[in-house]
């Protein structure tokens, strides 16, 4: 029997059980639903978890399997969705009051792909409102707690998605990453989080925050699972004009590799490791993990990413500018909550947006509007885009000397709920993840150990050149197989 208090079954192990008839999808989903029921009051990771929808889909999966008509080897496995990814006829609130009653009329491409594989959509997870945040505290509805310490944040903005996987409520989930929003919560919660190369996974059905930075990605219990989901989700989509051509790489195969570290050149960016705010306990885990990489045959190379210190500034100009444009559609007219306070059209825009958006969202829209406004566009937005080019060049240059880049995911472990009240302090916490979104490369975060003082998970990140998810997955899977044999399971 599966014990969700003390184990974290992977998608690949569950698929084996389902395909050898040792377990039905209904029984599997009932197990996860029961466990979720038991722990959700401590975690608050889900915004919606509809038992009927889930069990009906599970039943259909079991029938397909009985008839020998499985849609894929993963038919019947449950996966949760962040509440900014549309599922037809289900709510899609983006954790905002403005969209709290919105029902999506179509499936996101990633959802269509999962349904075509027979995957069971298992609930809608909590997030920072409109994906703006690094702690899940900006949800209009409730904060999610970190399963490792419920006084701490799970990270954000995909905090709910990371927490429910870490807590064993579901074997995998989807998140979205604009400045680190998959990788950082995965790091804080001790699970695996993957951001693909920009354009690898379709954004059709992902409520847009910053269109040149957003990507959907999987959050899982091991690297192989992330690779399996990447295979299912990735692909060219004519409905997304930023979607890159089909890859011919077999990602799932890459996720099974165990010996990729031998002779691998691993770049250590000195600006990251020498950073002032890097916590001693986090540094200690990193240092130990570097020894592990060396012992497995990897060649460590010191590299430089000279424009690291400008990444947060560049990001917060570009992302807020793009957000101000993307969120202009939320005006209370065609969808979303319309304020009854207004008596005329323009008043409706003001009042619906004023009442519907939370504080952080309003702040970012205002900042974004300012940096795009006449007289300021060149000084802020255009300049930030040029700095973005410099940051991209940093990575391109670094990859001439190494195969993958290795970094901490965050300067600290999960901080306390309510601890970071200054917006700028919150932004600076993204320093290790943010540059990747600007450059467009792929990155994966996975746990390397626990902090010696507070016992919280410490995440590490493998970064590969754009389009090279294969080498990133091979390196991460190989590291995962040799790192300390720790099972990353929080006691709830």
């Amino acid at each position, binding site marked *: 029997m599966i014990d969700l208090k003390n184990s974290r079954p992977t998608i690949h192990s569950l698929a084996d059980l389902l395909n050898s008839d040792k377990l039905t999808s209904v029984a599997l989903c009932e197990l996860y639903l029961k466990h979720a029921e038991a722990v959700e009051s401590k975690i608050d990771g889900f915004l919606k978890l509809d038992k009927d929808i889930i069990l009906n889909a599970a039943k259909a999966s079991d029938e397909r399997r009985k008839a020998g008509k499985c849609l894929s080897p993963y038919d019947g496995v449950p996966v949760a969705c962040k509440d900014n990814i549309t599922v037809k006829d289900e709510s899609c609130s983006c954790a905002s009051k403005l969209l709290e009653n919105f029902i999506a009329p179509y499936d996101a491409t990633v959802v269509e792909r999962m349904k075509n594989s027979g995957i069971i959509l298992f609930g809608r997870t909590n997030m920072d409102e409109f994906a703006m945040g690094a702690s899940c505290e900006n949800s209009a509805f409730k904060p999610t707690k970190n399963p490792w310490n419920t006084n701490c944040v799970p990270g954000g903005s995909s905090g709910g998605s990371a927490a429910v996987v870490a807590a064993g409520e579901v074997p995998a989930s989807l998140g979205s990453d604009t400045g680190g929003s998959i990788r950082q919560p995965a790091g804080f919660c001790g699970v695996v989080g993957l951001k693909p190369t920009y354009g690898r996974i379709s954004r059709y059905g992902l409520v847009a925050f910053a269109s040149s930075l957003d990507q959907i990605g999987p959050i899982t219990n091991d690297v192989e699972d992330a690779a399996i989901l990447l295979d299912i989700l990735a692909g060219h989509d004519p409905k997304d004009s930023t979607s890159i051509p089909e890859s011919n790489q077999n990602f799932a195969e890459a996720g099974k590799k165990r010996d990729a570290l031998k002779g691998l050149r691993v770049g250590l960016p000195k600006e990251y490791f020498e950073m002032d705010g890097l916590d001693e306990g986090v540094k200690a885990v990193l240092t130990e993990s570097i020894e592990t990489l060396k012992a497995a045959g990897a060649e460590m190379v010191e590299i430089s990413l000279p424009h690291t210190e400008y990444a947060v500034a560049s990001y917060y100009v570009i992302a807020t500018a793009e957000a101000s444009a993307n969120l202009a559609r939320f005006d209370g007219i065609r969808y979303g909550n319309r304020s009854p306070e207004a008596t005329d059209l323009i008043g409706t825009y003001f009042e619906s947006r004023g009442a519907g958006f939370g504080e952080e969202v309003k702040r970012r829209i*205002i900042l974004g509007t300012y940096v795009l406004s006449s*007289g300021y566009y060149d000084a802020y937005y255009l300049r930030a885009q040029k700095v973005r080019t410099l940051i991209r060049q940093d990575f391109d240059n670094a990859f001439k000397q190494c195969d993958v880049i290795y970094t901490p995911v965050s300067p600290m472990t999960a901080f306390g709920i309510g601890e970071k009240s200054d917006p700028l302090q919150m932004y600076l916490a993204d320093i290790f993840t943010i540059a990747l979104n600007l450059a467009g490369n792929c990155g994966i975060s996975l746990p390397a150990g626990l902090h010696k003082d507070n016992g919280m998970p410490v995440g590490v990140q493998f970064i590969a050149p754009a389009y090279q998810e294969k080498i990133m997955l091979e390196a991460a899977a190989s590291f995962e197989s040799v790192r300390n044999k720790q099972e990353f399971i929080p006691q709830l």
Partner: protein
Amino acid sequence: MAAEKIDVGHVAQLARITLDDDSKARFQENIESILEYVEKLSELDVSGIEPTAHAAPLTNVLRDDVKKESFSRDVMLSNAPATVDDELVAVPPVLPGEESS
């Protein structure tokens, strides 16, 4: 870069967002400190550098001008806060003083 301070009230007008006085004051402080931090971008020499607008090297991705399946009217209206005859989205009066029909 700009030396004048942001006028949060004015920008909120541009962004069509109602802000109460408390929020306005709070945002004024927050955003000023963020902009001060962002000033560091002006340290860099970006002469001759092309701006990056997008992370993937794709341009002018077009499709053939052929009619395809789209959503039906009732799907499009399903989330509308107010409708007229199940055909149109009802909106408040466009001009002040106008009666809504």
